[in-house]
């Protein structure tokens, strides 16, 4: 077996050293548990590398058909160009095959990359401190609510915008169902697509959670959300599912958001059928000890040289066990390193231009679609690179027509999660969509709705 270098000569010498004769003597366990003695595992036969490659290429080819179609899919998994430098750098074994940086002298590379990532996220979100990553945007949202509970002991209920990503709300429900934090969902305004924030309804509020932009692509009014949250004594949590929007929109920190969470997949990770992703979380300095997950700090070595190291580990499970702020151990460190590379590659002006391009392209397509008879833009709220269209057909039917006849993924059918809006589709436009793509989409929609 090519990954296992033990030869029969090695085995003989080592068994002799150990003082036994047979491999089976190594397994100091009741014989009735030794499955391999009675019944070997029923698994597909092992394949040589060439055959594994051929098999996987065959699978990949099936996926390429879908992957090559024109796509306007977004909704939390965003399509962005990945600079070639990233895959070249991230496949370096020193990053790829390292473990959690518990030994700082042998891990300055990972540690510095994560410190730089924390700096990037703090700068982007306008918050004081970001951690070194959580699993994804959905679990980050759940962790943020649990964190809010640790800070705001008086609050009871979490108020969550109905316009927050539906999967995030589902994950939040799963996380909270056993820990006695009731969830109340806040409706959205049918005209603007923004969350309706009525302070009178929220007197027991622990935290208020809104998307920024929300699932409909609408940029929520965080100023108003802050005022309402303050009035009812709740922490304000903002959730960003399209991280690129942070490079152009006013940062959540500027509005006084208490905990920022988000999905960082836009920064260098392909859609990957939904994983791995990159959970972002950032907060105010006063709450740093309540943050879940790993934090990298800049300190000194014994000679006074700057050095990076894991800090306030006293919040973490390996030190505090049941008193830890979270159970998280393995996070998405490599994805955070990728995000740092992505933000570095684009840099200050590249990111700004990229975001502007997204905004302008989305705006152009929205304008063109709105002119098609039978298409309307149901929400008046401002958007970044995603927006909702409403047609006279059912969303499901329309998307089927777009795909079957024209090989276009036209967007996400919102009726799956919003039953009252069966004709709404969420359309995402990024730099990956060419003018021809957009014309093709406009043309197809015009035909279908004729």
């Amino acid at each position, binding site marked *: 077996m090519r990954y296992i270098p033990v030869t029969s000569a090695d085995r003989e010498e080592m068994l002799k050293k150990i003082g036994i004769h047979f491999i089976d003597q190594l*397994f100091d366990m009741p014989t009735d548990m030794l499955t*391999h003695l009675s019944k070997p595992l029923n698994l597909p036969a092992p394949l040589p590398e060439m055959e594994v490659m051929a098999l996987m290429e065959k699978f990949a080819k099936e996926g390429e058909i879908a992957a090559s179609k024109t796509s306007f899919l977004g909704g939390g998994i965003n399509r962005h160009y990945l600079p070639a430098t990233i895959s070249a750098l991230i496949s370096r074994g020193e990053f790829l095959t390292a473990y959690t940086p518990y030994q700082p*002298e042998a891990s300055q590379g990972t540690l510095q990359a994560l410190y730089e990532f924390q700096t990037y996220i703090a700068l982007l979100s306008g918050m004081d401190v970001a951690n070194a990553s959580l699993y994804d945007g959905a679990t980050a949202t759940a962790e943020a609510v649990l964190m809010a509970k640790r800070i705001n002991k008086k609050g009871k209920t979490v108020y969550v915008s109905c316009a927050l990503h539906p999967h995030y709300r589902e994950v939040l429900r799963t996380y909270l169902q056993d820990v006695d934090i009731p969830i109340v969902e806040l409706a959205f305004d049918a005209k603007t697509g923004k969350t309706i924030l009525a302070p009178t309804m929220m007197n027991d509020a622990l935290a208020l959670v809104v998307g920024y932009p929300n699932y409909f692509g609408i940029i929520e009014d965080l100023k108003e959300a802050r005022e309402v949250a303050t009035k009812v004594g709740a922490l304000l949590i903002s959730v960003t599912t399209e991280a690129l929007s942070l490079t152009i929109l006013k940062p959540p920190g500027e509005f006084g958001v208490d905990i920022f969470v988000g999905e960082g997949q836009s920064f260098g990770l392909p859609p990957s059928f939904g*994983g791995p992703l990159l959970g972002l979380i950032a907060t105010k300095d006063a709450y740093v000890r309540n943050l879940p997950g790993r934090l990298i700090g800049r300190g000194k*070595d014994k000679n006074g040289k700057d050095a990076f190291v894991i800090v306030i580990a006293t919040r973490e499970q390996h030190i505090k066990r049941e008193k830890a702020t*979270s159970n998280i151990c393995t996070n*998405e460190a490599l994805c955070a390193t990728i995000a740092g590379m992505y933000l570095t590659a684009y840099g200050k002006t590249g*990111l700004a231009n990229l975001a502007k391009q997204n905004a302008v392209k989305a705006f152009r397509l929205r304008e063109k679609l709105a002119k098609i008879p039978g298409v309307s833009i149901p929400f008046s709220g401002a958007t970044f690179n995603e927006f909702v269209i409403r047609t006279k057909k059912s969303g499901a039917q329309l998307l089927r027509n777009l795909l079957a006849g024209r090989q276009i993924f036209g967007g996400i059918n919102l009726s799956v999660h919003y039953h009252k809006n069966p004709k709404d589709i969420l359309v995402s436009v990024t730099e990956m969509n060419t003018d021809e793509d957009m014309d093709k989409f406009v043309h197809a929609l015009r035909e279908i709705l004729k």
Partner: protein
Amino acid sequence: MIHSDTEKLIFEQGRAGRTGIDVEGVCLIELDDALSPELRRGPLAGFPEVSEPEMVRHYTRLSQRNVGIDDTFYPLGSCTMKYNPRINEAVASMKGFTNLHPAMPQTETQNAFRILWELEQMLNEICGMDAFTLNPVAGAHGELTGLKIIRAAIRARGEKRDKVLIPTSAHGTNPASAMLAGFTPVNIEVNPDGSVNLEALEKALDENVAAMMITNPSTLGLFETNIKKIADMLHAKGAFLYCDGANLNALVGIARPGDMGFDVIQTNTHKTFSTPHGGGGPGAGPVGVKKELVPFLPSPRIEKFDKEKFGKVLFVPVYDKQSIGRIHSYYGNFLVLLRAYCYLRTMGARGLREVAEAAVLNANYLRVSLAEIGYRVPFNRMCMHECLLTDENMPSGITTLDIAKRLIGKGYHPMTIYFPLTVHGAMLIEPTETETKETLDEFIQAMKEIAEEAKANPNLLHDAPHNTPVQRVDDVGANRPLNLNLRWKQQ
């Protein structure tokens, strides 16, 4: 070899006007129509402007200040740092996988569903379980999922049980996961050899116990011989037995947790199934359960349907009413699971058995050899995939930390130190199956030199490591004052 100088922060590099990738600007008038200026932020203050070569050099230099399995022997106990096959990386970068969007219609992504479904079947067989969810993205995430499944099953029975028993030698994630799942963790004392103390268990076991979490082999690297008895005791009281599968590498192809009486197991693909750990993640933590618990698995699950009935679609994500619900944005870490799938297709049953055999052989070879040169081996009996040493036989003043730091200087990544917490000065060494005997012999030689240096020149150990970018980092001092990013206001 690791570099001995440091690298400037990226924020201290570059110059205004440079970029690492060219992006066209846009017409500002059109931008104002698209997104009103009052919603927009100012320039990205603090962001670097570096050219592509500067960017490549920065990250290359950072990588040279890091150590991975590709560089050197990395015997971190309980972490299973085995070789990460490159074919799996090649497959995980194929566009037919990376560019699949989870919102594509099911008909378009049958390849991904098939891989996930087949991986589930293989994991069922390897672990002796009835069903797996692949949605958890890390071991601890799997623990939380497994415990929530148990909680849902207990609720469905109409019972209220809120205690989870956890041996004191367990990983810290166990009690933390129990808390997060709304349980009260109860510590169970272990015998000196790390096995569960049956009397302590008997005493703690009542109608309020929902489950017990056991790592088998234990975190001391020893097989829990009483496991069936423990399972019977728990089952008699209506409680479940949870397996922390962190140490599954010792068992693959040899024995199955399901056959030992475990009801739930979380596996760690980045340990047992060779997916890279990436400096802390991403991982994947699939969770397997026995029949009684299947309805409670998280959503969505992938089910295979009859081709005749459903036409083209064979594999469909389903949402069970009794499910604990969604635990991840989509289907978990697909690209990580894809690597594990390739690994299993490469290994087959015979290959997996060789994994456990070689892993256990290597660990015992180290145990005997290191004991011979004077290291204290507290349990000098056959170990599983890892062996445990302590610093007890070292000259006074020489600690486990000194030994670990000296190993870094000698070009190794150290073993796990000071874990399990129940053993004073613990050094947990897990060689894995992918190391040659020559490597093990060189490591033994290095450990021998260290033992000699400890006597002859103890300062060499206290000052270690010497040739690294930074030396002995003050991890306590780094907490006061804290410096968590360049934006951080020092307190």
